[in-house]
């Protein structure tokens, strides 16, 4: 999920370009829209195209997308701009940064902007799983836009070779272990040439770990973002399972598995099953040299995955006209037709049930059924880990997870330490 690329928009609009009056009777509203990608790449072209379409239908609103780098870079840029007194009107930022943005007093809730019945209906039109990360204290702070979940990809050729039915992915934790044992292949000298399964653990292991905890039917935090439950016995059990995959069952590469190169390992047959974001769907479809399948993650106490990705936020220091224009733009970008187009072109999960009812989306799913797996899994999804001071709390969990995976600590110890650290950080918000 996280980092996304892009390209900057051609011209330096800036101060001078703010179409001062221009003698026209109708005033134009200008919006600066920070979007988390670096310059270039296919995604900027899609965004530019959508903005151009929007402006055609709304001649009185000018939107200037500013491609601001990764999600981390974007929130840094936004917060710096706000403190420096130079604010964008809207931005796409990680859904989990909601509490941070609220604490900085940077954003406004959508309830303060929606007026008409149509607006209110639109606000209710999204998948509830995505809204979990967008609402707190009875208010909506973010609108889902580019959202994803974790899914399982499997190599049908490897399944056949191991004597498994290539059309049946593992359905439970136990099956994953049983299948994994058959799929793990060693050469004559005992070195593993293919692992059964790979769950990446670099960068943001908490996100994939949350798939395991959700399947074990336990939440990592409360809805107010003030409390974490890292040392819950069920959380420890989930971590024990992850550690056991490599340590006990030896069907998973030991130590930390790199997120960025996991798809490559999958293409090269170094792992038969991988867990990764739906955002990789297009990449896998283009590059896998063998037939592959996409499935929901296996269940334990229940099915489960966290959601991930970015939301639209509207910033407080804008004029009322700008806020209204920003709302119009966001409503347009998340309308069923646009959400469907966005999902088809990028691989993100279209954010509203209505988007899946559009003819384009139906045709796409018919042509490529794996696209619907993420949607069907949404009913089992929990909100991604998000608290006040989110970056530090998440780091506390990540450190614990990696300590357990590398064997530096037992799962119980690691989670106890992570919980103590998170509790210390969150004390200020109790």
């Amino acid at each position, binding site marked *: 999920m996280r980092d996304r690329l892009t390209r900057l928009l051609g011209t330096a609009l800036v101060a001078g370009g703010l179409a001062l009056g221009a003698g026209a009777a109708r005033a134009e509203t200008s919006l600066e829209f920070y979007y988390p990608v670096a310059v270039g790449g296919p995604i900027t072209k899609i965004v530019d195209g959508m903005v151009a379409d929007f402006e055609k239908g709304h001649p009185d609103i000018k939107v200037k997308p500013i491609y601001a780098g*990764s999600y981390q870079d974007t929130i840094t840029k936004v917060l710096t701009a706000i403190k420096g007194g*130079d604010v964008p009107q809207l931005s796409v930022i990680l859904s989990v940064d909601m509490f941070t943005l609220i604490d900085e007093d940077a954003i406004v809730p959508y309830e303060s902007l929606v007026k008409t019945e149509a607006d209110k209906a639109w606000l209710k039109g999204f998948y509830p799983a995505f809204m979990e990360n967008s609402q707190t204290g009875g208010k909506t702070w973010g609108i889902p836009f580019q959202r994803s979940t974790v899914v399982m990809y499997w190599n049908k050729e490897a399944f056949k070779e191991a004597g498994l039915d290539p059309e049946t992915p593992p359905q439970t934790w136990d099956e994953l272990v049983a299948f994994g044992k058959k799929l793990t292949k060693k050469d004559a000298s005992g070195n593993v040439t293919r692992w059964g399964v790979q769950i990446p653990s670099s960068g943001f292991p908490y996100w994939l770990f949350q798939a395991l905890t959700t399947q074990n039917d336990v939440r990592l935090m409360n809805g107010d973002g003030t409390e974490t439950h890292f040392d819950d016995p069920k959380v420890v059990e989930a971590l024990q399972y992850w550690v056991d995959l490599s340590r006990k069952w030896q069907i998973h590469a030991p130590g930390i598995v790199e997120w960025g190169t996991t798809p490559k390992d999958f293409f090269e047959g170094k792992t038969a099953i991988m867990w990764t974001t739906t955002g990789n769907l297009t990449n896998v479809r283009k590059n896998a040299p063998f037939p592959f399948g996409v499935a929901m993650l296996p269940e334990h106490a229940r099915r489960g995955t966290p959601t991930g990705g970015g939301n639209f936020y509207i910033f407080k220091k804008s004029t009322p006209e700008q806020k209204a224009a920003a709302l119009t733009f966001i409503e347009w970008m998340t309308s069923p037709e646009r959400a469907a187009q966005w999902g088809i072109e990028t691989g993100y999960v279209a954010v509203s049930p209505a988007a899946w009812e559009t003819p384009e989306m139906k045709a796409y799913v018919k042509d490529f059924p794996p696209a619907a797996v993420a949607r069907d899994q949404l009913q089992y999804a929990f909100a991604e880990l998000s608290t006040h001071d989110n970056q530090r709390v998440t780091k506390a969990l990540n450190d614990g997870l990696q300590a357990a995976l590398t064997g530096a600590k037992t799962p119980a110890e690691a989670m106890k330490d992570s919980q103590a650290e998170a509790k210390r950080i969150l004390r200020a918000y109790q």
Partner: protein
Amino acid sequence: MSALVPAAEGEGAAGRLLETAGAWLLGLVWALPLVYALWTAFHPSAYSARFDLLAPLTLENFVRAWAAAPFARYFLNSFLLVTSILAVQLVLSTLAAFAFARFSFRGRDLLFALVLVQLMVMPDVLIVENYRTLRWLGLIDSVLGIGLPYMASAFAIFLLRQTFKTVPRELDEAARVEGCSYLRLLWKVYVPLARPTYVAFGLVSVSYHWNNFLWPLIVTNSVTTRPVTVGLSVFASTDQGIDWSVITAATLLSTAPLLLAFLLFQRQFVQSFMRAGIR
């Protein structure tokens, strides 16, 4: 070495061998990422994690990297940025260092202490304050805006002052007796003698600003102002999977000017660093 007693000579040879081996080892460790980048960039992506001497060579990665973003413009921006910063830095700090080194005036030591304090402050701490100032000046999203906060370099002032202080007073006085003005004295006597320091500082400054990422990202919004490092982040898309071949090709492209310059002027750089005492 000559001061050692003869019996120690055997040990000296062994010590030298050890030193040489150590230097090679460190050199190899340092060069490894570069070697990997070279290997990966010139081969199809199927070979990015596999070593095969007979793997086919290709330039396609460079073509793809070049096409992924407007790199030509980024290179121009980076070039304008580092040259403008360096030019202003050299002029300002030469004058300031000369004043600190050769004139006595009231408050000189206090002022110099302030310059030294600036050395201790990480520029990242000042991001918000700098942003505010630049916005007030209307320089957000301009190449000048990226460079301005760095143009008065405390490091350069300090370095040049120390160098100027080592210039023999006799030279200075002889020139003055001949009727040389202060500016001419600076230009004819001090600057030529400080040449190694200028080269060394120039290298440090150029490589720092060529590689700087966070600040340029924050103050710029458009293709016409962003430097090559920001353009490079196009390839940091962990979401769609990482293609090492293109990343390494793009990295080589963006570091090539610096690497080439270093290789060409290597001898001068090394000598300058030794003389200027920066290591």
